[in-house]
């Protein structure tokens, strides 16, 4: 009997510290990587400003959330930020469309090489970053309200009688649900609608798409709009789950790029797969497995150390190593994207 309880406890431990955080972080990365991969597929450059686009969208959402909170409006158990999201998205769409009109369109029309776009995106990154810091400051901002847990560790323990607790935060549950809905919508859009098909065609073969009568400006506009939606939602979910700090969003750039490339850049399914691969690798490699083995192994074989492969400070290294491995072994990514 005790062996079974121990086994279940070990599973609960893994669920609590690996599966749930991995799923929610993976969903956030996937949504971010989708934005990067869409921009790459349609506009054909690696967008360094994407992290700051997320920060901008999140900031706008936070500002509206604060305003709503000050008016006493809330969503009960759910975070008020959900109510503020549409406003944040609208502002981000405006930002991206204005950036495209003032910056990228010129290079598109003069058929500039991708590197020029990349450098331009660095300029955009600077400017967006400056705006975000100017408006909301460089510090941590919390904007989570409503219930904190769907399942709290204490309730779980008293319900099951196990010694290990499983906790699922509202923000985590929300992240996973929203990501599923959003991805389903995106795929429906890309597979079934006329504009979505035009986008896929344009990404696949620009010249032939033009020969078929696809309007490039419209495709690009729609791409930025979708990117803004994905970026704002991904950023807000990340901010709800962890906290909002402009600098961390800049740092998300690397795992998001890694996710997009690992999955096969330009390939939306690849971006999602890549997001989860990166997130789970980070969580699994930096988790200390000692307790799991304490449950599973007889006392005599109990491990001495923490059984942690890498300290959590090296989580960037994980995405990077995966990135390098994929580049070496299979440059097109797991799901065959374009070769950059």
């Amino acid at each position: 009997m005790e062996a079974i309880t121990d086994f279940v406890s070990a599973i609960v431990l893994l669920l609590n510290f690996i599966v749930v955080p991995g799923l929610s972080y993976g969903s956030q990365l996937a949504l971010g990587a989708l934005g990067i991969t869409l921009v790459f597929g349609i506009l054909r450059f690696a967008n360094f400003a994407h992290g700051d686009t997320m920060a901008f969208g999140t900031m706008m959402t936070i500002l509206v959330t604060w305003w709503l909170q000050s008016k006493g409006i809330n969503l009960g158990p759910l975070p008020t930020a959900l109510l503020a999201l549409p406003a944040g998205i609208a502002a981000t769409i405006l930002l991206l469309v204005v950036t495209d009109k003032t910056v990228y369109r010129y290079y598109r029309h003069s058929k500039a090489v991708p590197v020029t776009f990349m450098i331009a995106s660095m300029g955009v990154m600077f400017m967006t970053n400056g705006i975000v810091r100017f408006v909301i400051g460089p510090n941590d901002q919390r904007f989570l309200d409503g219930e904190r847990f769907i399942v709290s560790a204490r309730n779980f323990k008293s319900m099951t009688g196990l010694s290990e607790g499983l906790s699922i935060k509202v923000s985590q549950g929300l992240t996973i649900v929203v990501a599923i809905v959003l991805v389903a919508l995106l795929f429906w859009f890309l597979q079934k609608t006329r504009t979505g098909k035009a986008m896929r065609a344009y990404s696949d073969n620009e010249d032939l798409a033009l020969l078929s009568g696809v309007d490039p400006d419209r495709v690009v506009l729609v791409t930025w709009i979708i990117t803004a939606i994905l970026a704002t939602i991904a950023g807000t979910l990340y901010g709800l789950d962890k906290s909002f700090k402009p600098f961390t969003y800049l740092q998300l750039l690397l795992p998001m790029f890694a996710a997009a490339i690992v999955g096969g850049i330009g390939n939306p399914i690849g971006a999602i797969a890549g997001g989860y691969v990166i997130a789970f690798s980070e969580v699994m490699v930096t988790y200390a497995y000692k307790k799991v083995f304490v449950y599973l192994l007889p006392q005599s074989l109990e491990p001495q150390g923490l059984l942690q492969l890498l300290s959590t400070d090296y989580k960037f290294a994980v995405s990077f190593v995966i990135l390098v491995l994929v580049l070496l072994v299979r440059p097109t990514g797991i799901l065959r994207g374009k070769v950059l």
Partner: protein
Amino acid sequence: MSNTLKTQLAFSVIALLLIIIGLVQSWNVSLGILNLCLISAVMALGVNMQWGYAGLLNVGVMGFAALGGMSAVLVSQAPVAEAWQASWGRLLIAALCFAATIAASIICYRILAAGRNRNLALALVIIGGLALTRFFFDPAVTAIESIEPAKTGFLGGMGLPIIFSWGFGGIVAAGIAWCIGKVALGLRADYLAIATLGISEIILAVLKNEDWLTRGVKNVTGLSRPVPYEIDLQTTTWFIDFIRWWHSGALGVLNEAEQPPALKQFVIDGSSIFVKLCYTGLFAGVLVVILLLSVKALNSPWGRMMRAIRDNEIAAGAMGKDVTRRHLQIFIIGSAVIGVAGAMLTTLDGQFTPTSYQPLRFTFLIWVMVIVGGSGNNMGSVLGGFLIWLVWIEAEPIGVWLMAFGTGWLDESNVIRIHLIENAQHMRLFFMGLVLLLVLRFSPGGILPEVVRKQGS
């Protein structure tokens, strides 16, 4: 306007600005800015070699600069004898294990045929080898870090004069650049950019967390100096005499009672300016040497080949030039120059603080310098380094002043006014981005564009 005239004009403007800052703010501030301008110029030269000569997009400047900073610690700090004593045996075994792991995996890779078996064998060798290495390494680290953690807690350095670290920093950066280049240079520009972005984050993670090596976030302060200390100067006879002679006019009008305190103040001010001038001399020397070498290299057959490769990789490859190998060369050299600048910067700061390395400041700002100055043109990079650093530093007070001025009609305690003034410093990021975009769009060659030699000249 010819480039030479533009160069002269631009540098005159910068000199003028520095003089104005010297007169309005203080000479100390002005010289401080000048020193950082010189370091920025060296960094920009390094990036320009990679981007301007060869078209390689290095977004990991921060990492290489931080490696240079680390070298300053490793060269100048005195070795911590106890730490070595407590750990050398295990460290040696760990190093041997690590070397053996690498050797074994290379042998594995060479002997076995490509396929699942090789991948499996490689994975086993690497994981097993690393586990074994850590078995010896972890206790060694614990031993090192437990020795006087508040003061040392690391292995220390070589105890050499810090100026050697400038070369050492270049070598370390070159070594890491070789590793990255081997992996990422065969791929296209976008991948190299992302790969370098990643490696710089990893370098920073290592520097922040490997306390046995760099004390991590506990920082290493009080690094030795290649120039005299102010406090020593202030008690040195020749220096006091020199200051007395320099300020003899001002001192002459004072009466006897007023003279000693006035002289003391002059000596204090003068010592700080003198120290800064010493740094200026050293940095300017390094800059001139690197600049001369790169101008020479750029105009040599090697430099022409580099540009030929940059302008048409496929054609150059078809002509039998080993493009990847050349790229590796220039990537290593450029990174080494950035490493040198990083070591110089830490030397100037007198301390190594890993948390001070921020990508916006150390990677992207350098890029703005190169693009604005003129990619492919060495003088342009130097100019970009000077100009952008000046703007970067002065944008803060000017921004605050502008905000205060612009919101003057609001009440002192107005929330918006306070917010605007407090956050004005962040607008310089916005401003830098704007400058980058404007130059890229309307003057893609930068202020001093690359000189394209006509055929036959």
